[in-house]
């Protein structure tokens, strides 16, 4: 009898959490604009929560690049009163952080959450908001370029001076290159139609071009690839999608995986196991290496054997 009772108690203890996680949750999403990397984060987030057995109703909002709408979305979400808010990109996270103080918020795809004012420190966010930074592994990217071109003296870079992320990344690139004794040649653009001219301005001034995670330049990437093909100048990117479009190689954050990891944080919040205040801001440890054989051949570089061996994907 005692055993049966103990069994029942145990069964109760096991099933209660199951029942708990089977309840329906609502998650509101605020995203500034539609963009493959941002959409991949959203998809990864939704897929992983589904996998983990969460029954979630989503309210999805995309501001279509308009900051005024972005604030209205934050107010809209406040009215939806969800169990969790997911914010994708810096401006969307700032607007939600300003308007929502009592619902757990997780951000993703924010390069510098401290400079953006979202958290006081990466280790101890302190309020209702935490999340993931997509700080690009610039050091390891420069090391990768050096594997391809051991004699590299100057790296050219194209970025939009109006993107907060790009400024942070470019400053980081300059710092890292200084340590390696590499010169950085900069070209800035105001919109994606300026990429062609910016790439041309770098020809003859550098041994390779590095494209940081810059929304503007990545949208106009084909123009830079064209210039690099014509001038046998290897071009490296900071995202793997660009390798498919024709850059030589990239060691990058995989945005889909980033969405997965953000969802793991969300699962802890929705399951009542943690609060954003005590959740350190996370970075993606798992990087992906993509190489493009055809692009390397057209731009006159050999893919080192050790790079080839550890590549996650080789585009032929």
């Amino acid at each position, binding site marked *: 009898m005692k055993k049966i009772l103990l069994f029942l108690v145990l069964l109760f203890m096991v099933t209660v959490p199951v029942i708990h996680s089977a309840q329906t949750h609502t998650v509101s999403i605020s*995203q500034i604009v*539609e963009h493959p990397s941002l959409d991949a984060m959203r998809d990864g987030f939704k897929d992983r929560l589904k996998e983990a057995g969460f029954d979630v109703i989503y*309210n*999805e*909002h*995309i*501001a*279509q*690049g*308009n*900051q*005024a*709408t*972005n*604030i*209205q*979305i*934050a*107010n*809209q979400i*406040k*009215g*939806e009163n969800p169990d969790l808010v997911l914010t994708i990109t*810096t*401006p969307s996270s*700032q*607007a939600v*952080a*300003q*308007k929502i103080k009592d619902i757990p918020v997780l951000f993703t795809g924010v390069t510098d959450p401290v*400079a*953006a*004012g*979202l958290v*006081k420190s990466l280790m101890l966010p302190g309020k209702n908001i935490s999340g993931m930074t997509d700080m690009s592994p610039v050091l390891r990217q420069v090391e990768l370029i050096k594997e391809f071109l051991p004699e590299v003296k100057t790296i050219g870079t194209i970025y939009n*001076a*109006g*993107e*907060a992320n790009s*400024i942070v990344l470019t400053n980081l690139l300059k710092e890292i290159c200084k340590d390696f004794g590499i010169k950085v040649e900069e070209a800035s653009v*105001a919109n994606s139609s300026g990429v062609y001219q910016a790439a041309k301005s770098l020809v003859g001034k550098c041994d390779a071009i590095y494209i940081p995670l810059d929304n503007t330049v990545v949208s106009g990437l084909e123009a830079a690839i064209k210039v690099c093909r014509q001038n046998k100048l290897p071009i490296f990117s900071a995202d793997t999608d660009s390798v498919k479009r024709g850059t030589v190689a990239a060691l990058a954050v995989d945005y889909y995986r980033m969405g997965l990891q953000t969802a793991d944080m969300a699962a802890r919040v929705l399951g009542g196991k943690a609060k954003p205040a005590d959740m350190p801001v996370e970075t993606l440890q798992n990087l992906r290496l993509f190489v493009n054989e055809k692009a390397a051949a057209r731009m006159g570089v050999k893919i080192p054997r050790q790079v080839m061996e550890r590549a996650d994907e080789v585009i032929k």
Partner: protein
Amino acid sequence: MISLYAFMGAIEQGTAFGLMVLGVYLTFRVLDFPDLTVDGSLPLGAAVSAVTISNGYHPVAGMAMAVGAGFIAGAVTGILNTKFKILHLLASILTMISLYSINIRIMGRPNMTLLGEDTLIDQFIELSGLAPHFSTPILFAIISGLTLLTLIWFLKTSFGLAMLATGDNPKMITSLGVNRDMMIIFGVGLSNGMVALSGALVAQNQGAADVNMGIGTIIAGLASVIIGETLFGKPNVTRAMLAALLGSVVYRIAIALALGVRLGNFAFTPSDLNLVTAALVVVALVSPQIKSGLLKRRAA
């Protein structure tokens, strides 16, 4: 379909952008000067106020400096147009694009946070003791209401009357000995001063000044002016300006409605937002014509 938060948020946005709409009304309708400077002067106001507030100045001082900066930006457009004979649209585009670089210079970066800073909104919440979703719209309504009253008073002074006449009949005003160029420079400056003040409020509301926050400002401004005229009429300047301010609120309520459209089984996706918003604005614009059409048919 639309929650209290979203509705109060629309009023808050509508009144904050209402100052910008008054500015657009002043150039577009009073001076007959299509001015695209606003896409740059809105983030200019945001940038100046963000820098001053985060350097420890009182938010009101930051806002006053934002107005001054906006006035200068508008005056530059006015000077390019009147003194250098550059077409008004082109002159304003030139100022607008240069403000992009200037705004990054002012902030030293493209995005400057105000989260955690002591903004006017925080001070007013503390002072009024009301919840943020009530106090913020009240604060913005007071600021835009006071600006509207000041503007109405100004347009009734002899200087203001001359400005009204500048857009209506430039030849007459010149023959009366009024310096038309000065009127344009001052008027476009005044307009952009209000736009910059609007930007300062928006930045405090958004939690950050961002160099890209001006995109689409002129569209929202013109849509608001026209919705206001359609719905609230324009028999005289006072009424027309009040209509412009209300038009801004209606425009934001329309967007709040568009955001509240339920997704899921319904075929709309978040990417349809611009389309839905535009459709709502078109409905607002067309409805009076349909109404008068129906009345005519009934009479016949």
